[in-house]
């Protein structure tokens, strides 16, 4: 009986580990018309965090800049990573490899504003992607 319990526990753990997802939340931002669309690819993250404000401006050199406010919906601390990618008018990503995931710690029910500056004058839209820190641990 004990063996069966142990085996079912191990099986559950293996299944849970197998279900580990790298999906996150994406916010697509259009600097031309000021629009933003949020895609939720991770149910847990959707329930824990939301995008509460988006503003656009330009840096003195003329490049687009975006400020996005993220708000925690839970009491506990969230360990996340975010990446802001930039796209040209044809929708192609500019210098994709050069854009990094940055760590972001959201305290319980707190808000944090993340900022991204376009990496090229032709960048007209951007995409913020947020994922849980554990998603970065994904090992094949």
């Amino acid at each position, binding site marked *: 009986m004990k063996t069966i319990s142990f085996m079912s526990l191990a099986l559950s753990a293996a299944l849970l580990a197998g279900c580990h997802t790298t999906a996150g939340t994406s916010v697509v931002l259009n600097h031309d018309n000021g629009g933003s669309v949020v895609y939720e690819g991770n149910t847990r993250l959707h329930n824990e965090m939301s995008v509460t404000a988006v503003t656009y401006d330009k*840096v*003195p*050199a003329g*490049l687009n*800049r975006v400020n996005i406010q993220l708000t925690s919906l839970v009491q506990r601390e969230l360990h996340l*990573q975010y*990446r802001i990618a930039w796209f040209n008018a044809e929708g192609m990503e500019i*210098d994709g*490899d*050069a*854009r*990094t*995931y*940055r*760590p972001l710690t959201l305290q319980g029910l707190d808000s944090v504003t993340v*900022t*991204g*500056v376009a*990496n*090229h*004058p032709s960048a007209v839209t951007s995409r913020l992607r947020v994922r849980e*820190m*554990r998603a*970065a*641990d*994904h090992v*094949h």
Partner: protein
Amino acid sequence: MKAMFLPVAGSMVLMVVTGCATAPHVYESELDRAPMTSRIEPQDIRRTVEKMAESLISDAGVLEATGGKRPILDIEPMQNRSQLIVDMKSITDSVRTRLIRSRLFRFVDRSTAGADIAIMDEQAQLGLTDPRKAVKPGRQSAAEMYLTGSLTDMVTHAGRVTDHYYKFTMILKDLRTGEIVWTDEQEIRKVALRPML
């Protein structure tokens, strides 16, 4: 028969086991992954470079100092004042790459000046190059500013916990005035917890 079977089977099992043990599982990893150690890792360098380049691009002071023109910069490799072995030139090279690709900055490179002279000498003396097309010394652009910085660290031990604090500082100095026209910092703090056993 039995006497032969055991050694043969044993050696086959041994071969299979050692064969499996020596073949490492290799896969291409994502560039930005979770930290594996409390030392400076590639993802820390990448995010430092990105932050510094974004900060420099966003700064109004740099454009003011050059009257709105694309400034010509050079690089002085960053100083490593930490206990780590880090290729500091590689960091400034990466910042330079980002800035050049933004099309807002121009760069000269003193570190390849020797090669420049050697190529010009060859063009002038070997007789292979059309003398009218040969590049002559004395026409290169002059750096108006240079980019440099430093890395420092602080390590604190408390029981099983080791706290590592790193700070990258970069500055942009105007050669003509001697003023620092831009500076920024990237702080990284990592905690390593030693296992009980």
